[in-house]
């Protein structure tokens, strides 16, 4: 019988509150176990640490002085992406994930606002660098660990320093320093209603309690093979990487297209822990691939990012009969996930409301409060806004004191900072929270958080139209399948001309699938755009 190598749990309270601690502990305990698999390739903890330490060393020596302690990682589903995230952390910085699937202008705005002095980039993302670094406010260190010959790139990126494979030397991983109280582990941008993405600052002290409690809850050990379905620009990826590495397990990064149809991958690689948006389960269902007993290797099936329909939970539970299905909930501002509900068949079906699974109760250390518009607590069974408090409540928005103040509040009679989620919920008398909807115009498109206001601003800017309304459409039980927009005008819109303009600012999942032009947009009694009437129009077609 295979001897089970284990990674001890983070001991007592004195364990360093640094996001990379668990990875380093695993790398010492089980250096030869696989840490990352991408497609058919895999790398051991030792190999990943060696690469990360070499990149960290280079970053430490060569990053221009000054600037905030943040390093960008411009890499996507590659070994460099994993090594880059670790390298940023090992050198004592927070990481800022960038995504080549996003419009370059959006990525450029994120990079410049973060103030990073260095970027770790994989070869597949290199073609976007010219545009990304054009007119950069200051010189940037570009570390491209896969690049053998840097001459061409260096010529193109005048004024910046490009270092490739040759510059990497074996280095001892630098000893981790205890992070300062508010040291950022990662900076993540989310959609902003005014047309500008907001940077959420997540501290080590926010992320580490979450990672440890999840590793405990799911009893992760070195035999586990955990899915990575989330892009690094989606904060749920922090769970994928760091909960897996906390206990010496292997994170399986699914290739891009496999995300649409992961059935074969789950079976061939015998994944033990699955974590995705419910949309992925719905996709499998549509392909006829959620048949009972399909995924016997799974021990845990976790969903987060959008509402989990009862029908999906039931089908998945039957398809992965050895697994426990859990529904997680949480905004980026309260670090990844902060409530959880365990699916338990028939009793859960009865407990669910409006066809969606409850979001459950706060994770250990976190607490919830359901309030009215004056932030006073409402009674159980009354609808209100969900507020969350506890160690996972983050530092707020980068360079945006006003928005931070509006969203991070101390409600009357409370002494802790609470984050206003903007989510409407009901707390049942047994303490279980039920998701109802949003207070504002935010929708979840396959788990991606989308401020419709940001799309409306982009359409107004591109067309000059004053009246624009974007809606989540089609409506699914989990959220929205996409976005459709209406604008007031006399002439039909030239969509093939408009679309690329919008694509310069908005990522794929925010691009409207259709733009309808009406002579004028309907208004409701309050003089606001009548979204219901527009929904009725869509339903009629």
């Amino acid at each position, binding site marked *: 019988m295979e001897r089970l190598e284990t990674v001890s749990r983070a001991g007592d309270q004195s364990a360093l509150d640094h996001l990379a601690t668990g990875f380093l502990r695993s790398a010492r305990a089980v250096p030869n176990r696989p840490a990352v698999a991408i497609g058919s390739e895999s790398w051991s903890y030792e190999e990943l640490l060696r690469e990360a330490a070499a990149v960290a060393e280079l970053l430490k020596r060569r990053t221009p002085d000054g600037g905030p302690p943040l390093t960008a990682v411009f890499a996507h589903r590659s070994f460099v992406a994993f090594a880059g995230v670790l390298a940023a952390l090992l050198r004592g910085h927070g990481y800022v994930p960038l995504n080549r699937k996003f419009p370059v202008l959006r990525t450029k705005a994120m990079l410049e606002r973060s103030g990073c002095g260095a970027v770790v980039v994989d070869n597949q993302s290199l073609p976007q660098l010219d545009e990304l670094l054009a007119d950069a406010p200051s010189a940037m260190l570009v570390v491209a660990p896969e690049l053998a010959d840097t001459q061409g790139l260096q010529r193109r990126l005048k004024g910046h320093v490009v270092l490739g494979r040759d510059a990497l030397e074996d280095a001892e991983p630098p000893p981790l320093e205890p992070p300062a109280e508010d040291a950022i582990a990662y900076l993540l941008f989310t959609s902003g209603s005014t047309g500008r993405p907001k940077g959420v600052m997540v501290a080590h002290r926010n992320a580490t309690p979450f990672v440890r409690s999840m590793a405990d809850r799911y009893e992760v050990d070195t035999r586990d093979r955990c899915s990575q379905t989330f892009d690094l620009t989606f904060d749920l990826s922090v769970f994928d990487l760091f909960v897996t590495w906390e206990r010496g397990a292997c994170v399986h990064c699914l290739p891009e*297209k496999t995300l649409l149809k*992961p059935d*074969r*991958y789950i079976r061939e690689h015998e994944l033990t822990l699955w974590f995705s948006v419910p949309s992925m389960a719905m*996709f499998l269902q*549509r392909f006829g691939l959620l048949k009972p007993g399909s995924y016997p290797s799974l021990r845990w099936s976790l969903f987060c990012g959008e509402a989990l329909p009862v029908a999906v939970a039931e089908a998945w539970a039957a398809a992965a009969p050895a697994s426990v299905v859990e529904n997680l909930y949480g905004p980026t501002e309260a670090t990844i996930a902060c409530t959880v509900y365990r699916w338990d068949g028939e009793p859960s079906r009865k407990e669910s409301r409006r066809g969606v699974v409850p979001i459950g109760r706060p994770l250990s250390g976190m607490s919830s409060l359901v309030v009215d518009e004056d932030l006073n607590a409402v009674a159980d069974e009354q609808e209100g806004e969900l507020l969350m408090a506890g160690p996972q409540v983050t530092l707020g928005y980068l360079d945006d004191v006003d928005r931070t103040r509006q969203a991070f509040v101390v409600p009357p009679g409370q002494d802790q900072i609470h984050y206003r989620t903007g989510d409407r919920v009901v707390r049942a008398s047994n303490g279980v929270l039920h998701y109802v909807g949003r207070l504002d115009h935010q929708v979840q498109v396959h788990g991606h958080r989308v401020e419709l206001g940001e799309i409306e601003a982009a359409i107004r800017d591109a067309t000059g139209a004053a009246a624009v309304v974007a809606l989540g459409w089609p409506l699914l039980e989990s959220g929205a399948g996409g976005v459709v927009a209406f604008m007031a005008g006399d002439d039909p819109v030239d969509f093939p001309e408009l*679309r690329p303009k919008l694509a310069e600012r908005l990522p*794929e999942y925010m691009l409207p*699938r259709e733009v309808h032009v009406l002579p004028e947009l309907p208004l409701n009694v309050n003089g606001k755009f009548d979204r219901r009437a527009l929904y009725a129009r869509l339903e009629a077609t």
Partner: protein
Amino acid sequence: MSVTEAEVRSFLLERLDPQLRQAGMEPQAVGDDTDLFAAGVIDSLGVVELVGVVSDRYGIDDDWEDYDPEDLLVVGPFCRYVAGKAVMDEAQG
């Protein structure tokens, strides 16, 4: 009655005509190896919707288990797969 690959292709292109035009692509320019997902003609939801539509239309009762995800959504392999699986009776035709 058997279904030909060409038939599936013409159904596909007709159905996706608006999306193709929106993406600035002429239906005639669509080749065997055109990847409609990579080209941004359809998004992930579009892929799933399409799978549902062709499953219903061509009576594909069994699952898509042996379809390679890398062929999502490449025109040639997709049409061949659907044609190979199709169980269509006269009434549906």
